[in-house]
């Protein structure tokens, strides 16, 4: 029910936009993420963007996972 997927925002006009995932495009409501811009990955739930995905955080997570050797910090809390 709370399923939501990252889609790339390819068009934006105020509170509406078009987002793309693979070959699928759909109209999305941007009322909850006015800061989203074209090129951003937005998290789409029931036709509405609920968040902008942070590429930096996604990369940081993958970097941290790459370093796991059974020791070290996994991050998650702000410093």
């Amino acid at each position, binding site marked *: 029910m709370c399923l939501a997927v990252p889609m790339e925002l390819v068009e934006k006009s105020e509170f509406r936009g078009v987002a793309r995932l693979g070959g699928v495009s759909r109209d999305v409501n941007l009322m909850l993420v006015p800061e989203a811009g074209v090129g951003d990955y937005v998290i789409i739930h029931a036709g509405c963007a609920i968040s902008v995905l942070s590429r930096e955080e996604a990369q940081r997570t993958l970097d941290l996972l790459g370093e796991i050797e*059974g020791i070290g910090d*996994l991050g*998650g809390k702000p410093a």
Partner: protein
Amino acid sequence: MKYLSEFRDGALAKKVADAIHAESKTPLRIMEFCGGHTITLVKYGIPQMLPEQIEMISGPGCPVCVTTKKEIDAAIEIARRPDAVLASFGDMIRVPGTRESLQQAKSKGANVAVVYSPDDAVKLALEQPAKKVVFFAVGFETTAPVTAAAISYARAAKADNFFIYSAHKTTPAILAALLDGEVRLDAFICPGHVTTITGADIYKPLTGAGKPCIVSGFEPVDILRSVLMIVRQANRGVAETEIEYTRVATWAGNAHAQKLLADIFEPCDAVWRGIGPVPMSGLTCKGAYARYNAAREFGISFDGDEKETPGCICGSILRGMKKPADCKLFRRACNPENPIGACMVSDEGTCSVYYRFGGSHAEAAHAKV
């Protein structure tokens, strides 16, 4: 798919699972609250990748499952009115009410339209000005702001024939109720998309009670990493909220969504199927927005609790006290084609997930107590 496939990488998942095995020191009972997490766990066989002493327990986190039969009956009552159209998410269509589901009512002529988004229900209202279009609003904090955005859209577009029938539920009240259960839970994997809206402070009652809380993403690597973070907290003897899903969820949550929720809705008492009444765990249109409330428009009264079918143990499963395999009806009288209890009615319900993805080996692994 960008930002999905990287978190489904089998080698990376194994690496995190190996770290869990290396670092796990004490027995842990971890509840995953969210039905989306339950699906990932069972589909990818995560319980079998974990050490014997770590037990995963599914929680009540599926809004479709906890929608009461009487709420479905009310939606059917609206759909049967000649002047109304009931617009619903697809996952509510097959859920049985007291006597029938929306799908069965539709086959007998009730006006039911399946929509992907509440915005589509507003568009339907604009296309059919002679009808009252009622959106059956179901979901937790992830979905409630999307309904609020649709009401805001309806107001701007002057769609005065648009209404919602709200079965929305909120999570903090139910999280506190889980602490009072008969089952000792040591830690929680918390819903990533609910937290995206609410922020991570809502888990303070749980961390205050000594339970580590990890806000997790939905891919297998996310969930394994969350388990590792719990193991590390347990080893350090602390109980804190941490966000694993940092690429999407934040500490503050979505301020725009929070404001929209506060402007349009106010808390009300609600009944959870399989659990019963939970004070102030529902949402209803407030103030000037009360005109969008279909219950008020059609004079639908809501009278509380309901009995489950004899033999059904969904109430205990929703609270994490029992597993699907403990139920005499599971896989026999109760299955996805003929759901008897709350946990079988939705694709994200614990029993439905175990029925479809579990297999007997997963049920056995999940049933190790």
